[in-house]
């Protein structure tokens, strides 16, 4: 209820602003500081990426871009606030697989509409998830693991309920009928540790946090969850290519993209799309993406909108099948 009232105040004051403040002209955009809302706390993967993006955009647009962390309720709190922000181009949002893929499927009483409330600007980066086991694990391949998981109970770790790590596991469980118990942790660091110490059997971790352990040999990568192999792990097969009927078409990845509240001027969106393109092409961003095991994306606002639609429907299918919901 509180939220609705606040939204109303926001709307009313926004209209008042427009009445006597006058909206920023798209031609000379930007003329003042831009805020980039991140629905996670400072220091997380999304935050670190957002700061990199903010840094790049500041240089390209010649205007300060600051990151504002609004964490809570599995990214849905900050997303709701971004949805209700004034669509003047001075409040942007760091969208990701959680707010615009998983959450709409998992949360029953979501306070925003991922499609209606946002104007997509550009898809920034995607990260594959990778199925990893401990080096001492008896399973050398995803097939062996699956074989074993059909007869005995396996545990899979995740960074929390509703994370892409959790749902990749649920997707695997639902499509193969394997007997797996979800063990949630708070953050992927803790979950990886449990995998290293052998307390959980498997994890469908985001590549960046698993990568160092795969390189050092402490974890064994069995498969990646994207339809194509990752350039960072060329020897590791995709789940799709294994030739297991149930796993055909398996696709789960994490992604990040720049968005604005719906109603933002098209010219502003175009300006930002171009600016973001410049950032993505820069050497410093390429280096960043490379160290994070990410793949740089791009494209037009329409491409991004289509991408979001696809994500929404595929996660919805997983969630419906796995039966994960939050009241």
């Amino acid at each position: 209820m509180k939220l609705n009232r606040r939204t109303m105040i926001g709307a009313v004051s926004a209209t008042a602003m427009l009445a006597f403040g006058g909206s920023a002209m798209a031609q000379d955009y930007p003329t003042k500081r831009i805020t980039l809302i991140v629905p996670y706390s400072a220091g997380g993967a999304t935050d670190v990426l957002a700061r990199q993006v903010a840094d790049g955009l500041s240089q390209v647009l010649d205007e300060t871009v600051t990151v504002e962390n609004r964490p809570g309720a599995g990214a849905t709190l900050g997303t709701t606030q971004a949805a209700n922000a004034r669509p003047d181009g001075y409040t942007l949002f760091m969208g990701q697989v959680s707010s615009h893929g998983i959450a709409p499927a998992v949360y029953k009483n979501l306070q925003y509409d991922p499609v209606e409330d946002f104007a997509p600007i550009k898809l920034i980066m995607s990260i594959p998830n990778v199925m990893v086991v401990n080096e001492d694990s008896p399973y050398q391949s995803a097939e062996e693991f699956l074989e074993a998981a059909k007869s005995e109970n396996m545990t899979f770790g995740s960074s929390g309920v509703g994370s892409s790590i959790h749902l990749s596991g649920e997707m695997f469980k639902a499509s193969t009928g394997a007997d797996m118990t979800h063990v949630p942790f708070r953050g992927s660091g803790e979950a990886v540790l449990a995998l290293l110490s052998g307390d959980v059997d498997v994890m469908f971790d985001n590549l960046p946090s698993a990568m160092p352990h795969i390189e050092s040999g402490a974890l064994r990568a069995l498969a990646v969850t994207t339809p194509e192999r990752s350039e960072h792990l060329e020897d590791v097969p995709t789940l799709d290519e294994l030739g297991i009927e149930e796993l055909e078409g398996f696709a789960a990845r994490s992604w990040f993209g720049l968005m604005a509240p719906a109603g933002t001027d098209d010219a502003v969106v175009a300006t930002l799309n171009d600016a973001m393109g410049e950032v993505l092409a820069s050497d410093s961003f390429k280096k960043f993406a490379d160290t994070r095991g990410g793949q740089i994306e791009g494209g037009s606002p329409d491409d991004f909108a289509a991408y979001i639609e696809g994500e929404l429907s595929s996660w919805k299918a997983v969630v419906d099948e796995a039966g994960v919901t939050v009241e």
Partner: protein
Amino acid sequence: MSETDTDTDARRGRRREIIFAVLTILAALVFAFVVIPNGVTRPASVKHLPLSPVFLPYVLTISVGLFALIHFLEAIFAAHIPGEDDASLGTHPRWKSRLLLLVGLLALYLLMPERLGMPLTAIIVTIALMAIGGERRPLILLGVGIAVPVLVYLFFAHIAQVPLPMGLFEDWM
């Protein structure tokens, strides 16, 4: 202090402890029978009892009730140990009106920042509180009351990069 004073103090102290214990027990009961059943969504099936979301809240509520009961028995049967509250300082003679004023000012901090903006709210409340505290020099009231909130605002907004709400003044910054 005379002996009768100590006696009444002890009796008053004991009564206070008994009231505290009874209220805590009542709160625990309300929690167990109303708040937990309504506030916690239970999943359909749970493998082990401790896995249930209601497990810990129930254990804690029952423990609170038990300790409150022990406290109650202790207050009734054992000698009262006076608290270490420094009574010499005393309560302000007009504490009720001051409390009301304080609650009002705190409410301002809660309700006004999104309309008047954080800096202006801070200026109003700070000046008002200094005045209540006994400050009468206008130079201090206005000087400190305006300069400090503005400087701290600038620090938060520009150095720590935390944009505080500006309310009406959003376009000025």
